[in-house]
């Protein structure tokens, strides 16, 4: 253990700095406890959304080795579909129809793109998903329109006050946020059961480990890809609905979803728990950096301030790439020479 810490001092130092950075505002009394926890909750909420997008990335990467640049576009497309369809039908019906839309999309992707690019370089597949991403952004607006749309989940948006008697002021929480977090947690548990306990999940893990061997025991790659893209589409749909009900469905969703990239670098490209924990760390980290670190920088160096939230995640990812390229939970690649 001691030698492990010594050998990986850079990683240990980075994680320690993160933890200290998170505890510091509360410990030094810079922030009132109520405010501190509100900021943390806000961070966790955006973290949940990053996690969901990252989850879609990890699923597809594990099963096919493809880095799916289009995951953010899928979130936008799914959210647009639900938003527009729910204008003319009840939300649950729109939601179920949108699952169908994402399944058809997955099937088309396999049929028209992946099948023809099997065994190509990773960069070719990345370019292909980049193309799909832009197509989907544009096509979504062609079909569903380009205004800002609302998804009304019917949940109360009024905040509730909790922990009032623990410290002064208590914490303000949005009911909708709590439901969203619970839904995300349920989704992760369902996926874990699907992957670990079902024969189909076993087949997916098998394909992720070794394509050739999986085929040799009768697992058809094409079906597996359709399934995994459908699951990723479903995850995108859930993320899209949560996002849309909170902030409205608009083009910027597709861009904010890019934050999933630093999340998977932090958590590891092949790790489902990594995607979840990475998302939460980045969500909370960037909020803390914005709220607590920002003013300090402004005071000390006489800066204009602001904007930390936009680059913090990428900076953190860069640091992780330097000291631990496989991420917190990713598989370490050892190249034999």
């Amino acid at each position, binding site marked *: 253990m001691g030698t492990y810490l010594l050998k990986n001092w850079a990683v240990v130092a980075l994680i320690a700095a993160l933890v200290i950075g998170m505890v510091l505002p509360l410990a030094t009394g810079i922030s009132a406890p109520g405010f501190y926890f509100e900021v943390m909750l806000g961070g966790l909420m955006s973290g949940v959304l990053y996690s969901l997008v990252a989850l879609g990335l990890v699923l597809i990467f594990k099963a096919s080795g493809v880095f799916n640049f289009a995951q953010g576009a899928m979130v936008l497309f799914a959210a647009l579909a639900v938003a527009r369809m729910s204008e003319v039908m009840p939300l649950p019906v729109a939601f179920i129809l949108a699952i169908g839309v994402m399944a058809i999309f997955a099937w088309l992707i396999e049929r028209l793109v992946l099948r023809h690019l099997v065994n190509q370089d990773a960069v070719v597949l990345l370019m292909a998903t980049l193309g799909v991403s832009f197509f989907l952004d544009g096509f979504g607006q062609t079909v569903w329109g380009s205004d800002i749309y609302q998804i009304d989940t019917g949940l109360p948006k009024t905040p509730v006050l909790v922990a009032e008697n623990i410290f002064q002021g208590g914490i303000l929480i949005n009911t909708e946020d709590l439901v969203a977090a619970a839904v995300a947690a349920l989704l992760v548990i369902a996926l874990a*059961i699907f992957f670990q*306990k*079902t024969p189909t999940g076993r087949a997916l*893990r098998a394909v992720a480990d*070794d394509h*050739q061997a999986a085929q*040799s025991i*009768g697992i*058809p790659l094409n079906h597996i890809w359709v399934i995994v893209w459908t699951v990723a589409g479903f995850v995108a749909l859930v993320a899209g609905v949560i996002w849309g009900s909170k902030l409205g469905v608009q083009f910027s969703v597709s861009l904010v979803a890019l934050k999933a990239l630093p999340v998977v670098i932090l958590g590891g490209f092949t790790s489902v728990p990594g995607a979840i924990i990475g998302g939460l760390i980045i969500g909370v980290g960037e909020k803390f950096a914005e709220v607590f670190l920002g003013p300090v920088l402004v005071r000390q160096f006489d800066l204009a301030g602001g904007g930390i939230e936009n680059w913090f995640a990428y900076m953190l990812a860069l640091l992780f790439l330097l000291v631990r390229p496989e991420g917190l939970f990713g598989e370490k690649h050892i190249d034999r020479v």
Partner: protein
Amino acid sequence: MSRARAANRGNVLLNVEDVSLAFGGVKALQQVSFDVFEHEIRAIIGPNGAGKSSMLNVINGVYTPQHGRITFLGKVRENMDTHEAAADGIARTFQSLALFKGMSVLDNIMTGRNLRMKTGVLLQALHLGPGKAEELRHREHVEHIIDFLEIQAHRKTPVGRLPYGLQKRVDLGRALATEPKLLLLDEPMAGMNLEEKEDMCRFVLDVNEEFGTTIVLIEHDMGVVMDISDRVVVLDYGKKISDGSPDQVRNSQNVIDAYLGVAH
């Protein structure tokens, strides 16, 4: 071939006729023909680059030959994917291990049962009714294979952590789980020490005897091949140069030349 084994032999299971395979200018296989009987252990041998692995990959559907015809179970095979070959009853092991490293021994072998599972995903997930019954039934079959291969103690171990010889057994177990009619073994003893080789020989013979599985194997170790196979095909530079019982092959001038080289 012992008399008892000869008597046990069935009809033609696999017939390879006039198969040619080329990669660009490289002729991996040239007009190779041979047949495999039911319950037989058939070996394919030859020096490096003779086309042994290519032959196995053709039977298994990885490569589609440019010429020739392959008949399996009396049906002429058209273009076929590996997973379709598996569904038809052709399983294989790999020369360089291709196990699912992150998964346990049990899960690795269970993946071999996927082909035979029929209940829907939802029932599987909830472990309800037919889903549960089916999982248990397949689990039983897999436990039988695990006992057979004597890897009970490692059931829950991730295969990546097992020693090489045991990983080879898991590879064999996974192939057996698909209940193959034809089992292809790609150098099952490669890289093994003597003891591991003896174990593997015993397993191969037992599989053949207990399950009646037909086996086609590629092997470098001549001793092993001569001991366990009924008939041997010898390839050299993509061409068949000999075919017959181990004794016939051993004494064939072509084979001696190919292995030892000839004066030009």
